[in-house]
């Protein structure tokens, strides 16, 4: 029997190697989200070289973005069954191959495949596993860690946009795509950083197992972490090969998760058109080109600020219990900003709008993984994040064209902005009602049932059981305290 590679920890370390994971996730966000946004810088070159118009060239960006989100569940599936490191490294190699193939493109359709599908698929294999990993390593400072990790897309776009422009000037678009392919290879480095971690809370099981079959249960859990379903598990559980994958996805039936999923659909529908239509709207109300570009820069920079500060804020002890409410507040505020937008008809009024929208946009982006982790727990976080990002894909795809159609038919931006505003406010109110309903149900149940939680055995069980750091004592004390208070 091979020596186990996993170290069982009592609770997330909240530091130490966790910060390296945050750095890794930050780099993953730069290499995936920022690079996707910078693809649009190549469009002018593609239009000239292939003699095509803007609409056909813009499909490349849509295909890449859509592929990244649609294949997010595939990414989390691979990282659950192989390992996070292997999944992210594979994704990095795939994305890099896509970019390198694009540098030899001879037609726009070639680019649709290599730069759109292949690169998007590679990014999908990296994005959600990396974010899930951050959640496993942090508990007390989870929101701050996520804030730092997610700010990578804003900072990355800020830095990469002029760099890509410079590369295109020096090496033309073929050379620039080749070098960008090399840059994206750094995803393999991020993958190597993602050291696996197994938390004791992933192994909670009912007391009867502990007493009789604790050996097999531990083996079962370990094997589940390490490999695909083996005959051993089939023998123990008598449920067949689909037990593993079903067990991974049983969070889908949780009512909390279903509510979150529906609200994410509406939220994703509302948030994407602004980045496409803010500049045309500003130009239509008489703002100059430089001022419109300045508005977009404000949005980008304040997005980063919102990521980090909101993450830090929601980690404070007073706000930690109310993270869900902070999330729905941020989404609601963005919806409200949308509803005010048609009234803002001059540059001095659009600047505070950019500040507010950008801040809360960064805020809720940070909290999406945190809220998901709170709903499904860290064991299924990877798969849950895959599903959540998958649900972003379709709204991202249909929302800008629908908004564009509304603008064309009604000849003003009011209708599309109002629709997006209502979509986001609906998402926020849905979450609010769900939380209220849950609270009412809990107060009813509390009077009826007693607490029959499993008693946590303090002894660790595994082929090697020892503490990683010297402060296991303190952590055990904390666990005892939390168990007693439940």
């Amino acid at each position: 029997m091979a020596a186990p590679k996993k170290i069982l920890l009592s609770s997330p370390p909240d530091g130490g190697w966790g910060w390296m994971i945050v750095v890794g996730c930050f780099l993953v966000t730069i290499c995936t989200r920022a690079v996707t946004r910078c693809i649009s810088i190549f469009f002018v070159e593609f239009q000239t070289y292939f003699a095509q118009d803007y609409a056909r060239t813009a499909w490349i960006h849509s295909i890449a973005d859509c592929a990244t989100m649609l294949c997010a569940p595939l990414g989390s599936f691979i990282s659950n069954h192989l390992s996070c490191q292997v999944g992210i490294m594979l994704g990095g190699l795939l994305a890099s191959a896509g970019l390198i193939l694009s540098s030899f493109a001879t037609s726009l359709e070639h680019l649709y495949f290599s730069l759109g599908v292949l690169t998007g698929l590679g990014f999908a294999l990296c994005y959600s596993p990396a974010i899930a990993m951050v959640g496993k390593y942090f508990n007390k400072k989870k929101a701050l860690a996520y804030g730092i990790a997610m700010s990578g897309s804003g900072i990355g776009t800020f830095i990469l946009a002029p760099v890509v422009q410079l590369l295109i000037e020096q090496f033309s678009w073929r050379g620039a795509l080749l070098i960008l392919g090399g840059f994206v290879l750094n995803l393999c480095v991020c993958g190597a950083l993602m050291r696996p971690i197994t938390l004791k809370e992933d192994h909670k099981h009912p007391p009867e197992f502990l007493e009789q079959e604790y050996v097999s249960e531990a083996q079962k859990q370990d094997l589940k972490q390490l490999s695909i379903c083996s005959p051993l598990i089939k023998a123990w559980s008598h449920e067949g090969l689909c037990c593993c994958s079903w067990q991974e996805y049983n969070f889908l039936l949780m009512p909390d998760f279903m509510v979150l999923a529906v609200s994410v659909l509406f939220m994703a529908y509302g948030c994407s058109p602004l980045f496409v239509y803010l500049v045309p709207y500003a130009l239509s109300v008489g703002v100059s080109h430089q001022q419109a570009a300045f508005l977009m820069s404000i949005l980008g920079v304040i997005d980063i600020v919102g990521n980090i500060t909101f993450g830090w804020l929601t980690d404070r002890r007073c706000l930690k219990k109310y993270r869900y409410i902070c999330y729905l507040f941020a989404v609601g505020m963005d919806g409200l900003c949308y509803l005010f937008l048609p009234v803002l008809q001059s540059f001095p009024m659009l600047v505070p709008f950019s500040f507010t929208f950008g801040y809360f946009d960064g805020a809720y982006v940070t909290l999406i993984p945190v809220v998901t982790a709170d709903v499904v727990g860290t064991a299924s976080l990877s798969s849950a994040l895959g599903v959540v990002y998958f649900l972003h894909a379709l709204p991202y795809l249909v929302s800008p064209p629908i908004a564009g159609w509304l603008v064309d038919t009604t000849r003003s931006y009011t209708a599309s902005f109002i629709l997006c505003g209502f979509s986001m406010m609906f998402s926020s109110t849905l979450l609010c009602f769900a939380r209220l309903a849950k609270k009412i149900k809990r107060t009813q149940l509390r009077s009826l049932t007693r607490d029959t939680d499993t008693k946590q055995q303090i002894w660790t069980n595994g082929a090697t059981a020892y503490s990683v750091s010297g402060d296991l004592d303190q952590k055990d004390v904390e666990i005892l305290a939390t168990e007693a208070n439940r």
Partner: protein
Amino acid sequence: MSICNQNLFGYANHYTQKELVKSQKCVIFTVGMGMFSRCSTTAAADGSKDSLNNTQPAQGTVVFAVDFRFSSAPVEENVILYSPANIALSCNLTSPSTDSATVNVTWKKDNETLRSSSVTFNETKHVWSTQYINQMGNYTCVFKRDQEVKATFHLQVPQIEGKEHHVVSYVGDSVVLVCKSIKYIPISWIWYMSNGSDQQLPVSVQWNKYTVDEKYANITKLKILKISEEDDRSYWCQAVFKLGESKGKVSLKVLTYMTPLKPFLAIAAEVIILVAIIFLYEMYSKKKQMHAGTLRQLMGCNLNVISVQRKSSTLSFINCWRFPKLS
């Protein structure tokens, strides 16, 4: 006769652009921040491929005037002419009426003094004007008494901007060079390429090498196929207007595939080194933890070793109870 008159006193040494653009039957011209239009009965010829002989000059004359005093600095003005027109250049000098000294006036074109009869001099207002200018050039009016003041009108056709930066392409690839003239539509475009020496050869549309695409009249695209090292030179796109021609320059730089490959290989090497370092560090730290952990356990725990025989191997489990078991 309409007068476009602008007092430029105080705007010393800066360029003011006045443009003459033809649209349908009216002439619209902009002077600084004002826009004036005057409609004539002659038909305009915009962007069509009429020969230069068929265009008729507009009725009436457009006057470009400069006002200044003896103390002002030299004034420069750019006048862009798209099609033939009657232009009057007027310099108004105001001097104190008590000043009775005579003022010497000369008009120069490109530093040659003009002696034509179309130069008039109005004593009361000191206005000079010339008429029926059909030639581009720099016209200067010079007033001389004890000091000298002058104003220069640069009459020119619309300028074409090429690309300041090189266009980069690779050996064996194809490239498209673009020249645009956004506001004014030229009659035709001609491409030239440099020859090493300062000569410029016209680019002949050979089979398989050069293609000129003129889908829109104000954009021209030269497509060069199967690029080789000798295509690394400058190209000029010449726009032919009714009153003259102007050129824009686009230079092409040809690289081999090795050029971007070097940074790519450098980054790939950096990635491999970092991945190796991280994996080595991980193996090292695991070994360290294993030794440290076992030692700690042995020293502080109630050891309870359970061995389970499982197929051909033995699994050892160490249960360490540091706290009383909760029942």
